[in-house]
């Protein structure tokens, strides 16, 4: 008796092996992970553009003291919406788009586990953000209480309040569907031979990110629902007059909010861990320690939330606990930075645009990390809290951190997606202008914060003028320099300026992994022939497959 086993991933959608539909219906009905990845990325960049315009209004207003362009109420609406749009509309969908494109290709399956859910999860987002942005035109304007939506301030919001809550719920559902899809895909649809500890770091970081999302999203959903019932249904969860506790909202919000910070940065670690070995032409130093470091950071993210609220008056023991647990995060983060540098050390380095952005990430994210360490010190935080030092800190983590990693990822993988190489000269111009202007924008804000300038104000004392002017110039420069990137990407997508599809499968000399074994551009359905993954994480071909099969 002989047994023959034919294995492949099953497909849960009817359009298996169909080519794409034509016209707009392709994008509306698609269940293909590449199409949805593209949609997520276009959506993300639309949101970055809208959020960026809001930031320009903010910076224009802050160019000099006094009120120039917007009244204080509208200024507060812009600061609130800028954060919500950038976090939930820009960074998170950007990473989900990259996961959609790359996770199936990296683990050797042809699509995500739940393709229809994937389609639904994406199409919730445009509705959520259309609703959210439409609040600018409602009586009372958009939400203006800050993205942290602290009561009782946020309960003073006008007609836009229930719309804000509904939009947050929709964003949450979208994130959860994406997270569930990615978890099931990674756990169940890895190609034969692709063991957990052979998975690329990007896949690992996304698995852990998805776990964090699933664990903390109910906390946000519950928190905003309680705000809604407090305002409209007479409950008193956070209403002190009714026996509630407004400070508990801060605890609950940051119990979600701090893991959310890592949700926005762990996939960036995965991207950088993919790019640096490619351009250093060396395997990633300390792969296993990188995985454990990411898992440690995820664990620690659950027990540090109160460092956002030292000043509300928590007990000394609490302050000490949250101070030390926060500082502990520097250990696994240090492991990662050390490993990236060790990977580059002695490598045969070249400095193409993705690598430049990756190096900038390591350097500038570390600056954000160090200012974070300062903020973790409770006595110091009493001085820094609610100042521009905090604004500088989280923008260093999120812009040269998360956003630079998304940009690096797009430069790195776009030849694989489109079959066309981006323009390297334009890429380098984009890199240098972005890197210079991002520092011009945010570095002076450290000084403003240390000098005592509070955040979320449209007007300020005259001694803060010079640094604010510098910061505003930097913000406009950064925004304008992104058009180089947009044209470079669109030129790859549409073949502008005579760009032809002429890149090889591997694209980069030092690239390794399953995604580099498929043609460029990647076929609409990849891995129609299931790969067998060898010890080096690369597919085994021909006779070797037969030998392994028998």
């Amino acid at each position: 008796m002989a047994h023959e086993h034919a294995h492949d991933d099953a497909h849960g959608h009817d359009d298996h092996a169909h080519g794409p539909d034509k016209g707009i219906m392709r994008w509306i009905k698609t269940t293909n992970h590449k199409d949805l990845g593209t949609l997520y990325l276009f959506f993300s960049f639309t949101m970055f553009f809208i959020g960026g315009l809001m930031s320009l209004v903010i910076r224009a207003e802050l160019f000099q003291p006094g009120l120039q362009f917007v009244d204080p109420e509208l200024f507060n609406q812009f600061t609130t919406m800028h954060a919500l749009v950038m976090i939930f509309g820009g960074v998170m969908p950007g990473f989900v788009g990259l996961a959609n494109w790359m996770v199936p290709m990296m683990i050797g399956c042809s699509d995500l586990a739940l393709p229809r859910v994937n389609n639904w999860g994406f199409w919730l987002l445009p509705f959520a953000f259309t609703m959210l942005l439409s609040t600018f035109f409602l009586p009372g304007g958009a939400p203006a209480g800050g993205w942290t939506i602290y009561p009782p301030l946020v309960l003073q919001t006008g007609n836009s309040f229930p719309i804000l809550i509904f939009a947050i719920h929709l964003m949450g559902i979208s994130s959860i569907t994406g997270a569930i899809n990615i978890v099931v895909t990674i756990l169940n649809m890895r190609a034969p031979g692709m063991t957990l500890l052979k998975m690329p770091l990007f896949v690992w970081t996304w698995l852990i990110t998805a776990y964090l999302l699933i664990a903390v999203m109910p906390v946000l959903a519950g928190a905003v629902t309680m705000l809604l019932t407090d305002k409209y249904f007479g409950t008193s969860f956070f209403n002190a007059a009714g026996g509630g506790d407004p400070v508990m909202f801060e605890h609950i919000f940051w119990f979600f909010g701090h893991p959310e910070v890592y949700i926005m940065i762990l996939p960036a670690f995965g991207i950088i861990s993919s790019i640096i070995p490619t351009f250093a032409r060396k395997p990633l130093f300390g792969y296993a320690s990188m995985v454990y470091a990411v898992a440690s950071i995820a664990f620690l993210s659950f027990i540090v939330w109160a460092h956002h609220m030292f000043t509300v008056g928590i007990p000394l023991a609490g302050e000490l606990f949250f101070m030390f647990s926060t500082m502990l995060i520097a250990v696994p983060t240090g492991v990662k930075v050390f490993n990236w540098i060790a990977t580059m050390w002695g490598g045969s380095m070249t400095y193409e645009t993705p690598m430049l952005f990756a190096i900038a990430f390591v350097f500038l994210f570390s600056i954000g990390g160090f200012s974070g360490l300062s903020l973790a010190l409770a006595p110091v935080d009493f001085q820094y809290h609610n100042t521009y030092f905090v604004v500088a800190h989280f923008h260093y983590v999120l812009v040269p951190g998360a956003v630079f990693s998304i940009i690096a990822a797009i430069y790195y993988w776009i030849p694989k997606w489109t079959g066309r190489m981006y323009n390297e000269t334009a890429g380098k111009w984009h890199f240098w202008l972005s890197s210079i202007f991002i520092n011009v924008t945010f570095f002076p804000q450290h000084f403003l914060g240390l000098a005592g300038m509070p955040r979320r104000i449209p007007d300020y004392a005259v001694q803060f003028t010079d640094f604010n002017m510098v910061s505003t110039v930097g913000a406009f420069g950064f925004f304008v320099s992104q058009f180089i990137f947009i044209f470079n990407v669109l030129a790859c997508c549409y073949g502008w300026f005579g760009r032809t599809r002429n890149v090889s499968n591997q694209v980069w000399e030092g690239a390794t992994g399953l995604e580099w074994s498929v043609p460029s551009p990647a076929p609409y359905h990849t891995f129609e022939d299931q790969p067998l993954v060898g010890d080096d994480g690369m597919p085994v071909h021909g006779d070797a497959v037969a030998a392994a099969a028998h």
Partner: protein
Amino acid sequence: MSSTLCTRLVIGPNASLSTLQACLFMGLLGTVSLAIGGFFAVRGFWPILPFAGLELAAVAAALVHALRRNAYREVVSFEAATISIAVGMAGRGAGAKVVLARSGTRVLVEAGPYRNSPTRLRLSCGGQTVELGHCLTDAERERIAVRMRELIHPGWRAAPKRQTAPVESWLQI
């Protein structure tokens, strides 16, 4: 003709997740999620708990869906005179079984009904047709069709030169 079993093909989807691993993952997630929801519920902030429950139910549904799909099997047994095809879920016995005469069975790989739709692998005997390999890719259907033609090999022709091992573990991936 004797009914001695010569070769058996087992066709199933690729799956890297076992039931045990799925339970472990649910346990790890459920413990954390319910502990968080439970803690806040005890403090009076109960609306977090139902959201955690809903989300865990969604994760569980996705894992059950994946595990169910993993259990799908098509078993094609080549006996001396017949080919029996059993289709069902692993561990639950055959849901449907068809027996075809080996000498009259043809293996067909046909194009799908629409442009670019998947190919169809069929075993046809007289007026009876059985479709197999839903969970395979086009390339795999082609490969397995070649192997089936080798195995069906009509009795009036010489046996194939290829020697079949008594216990052949041919892992098609």
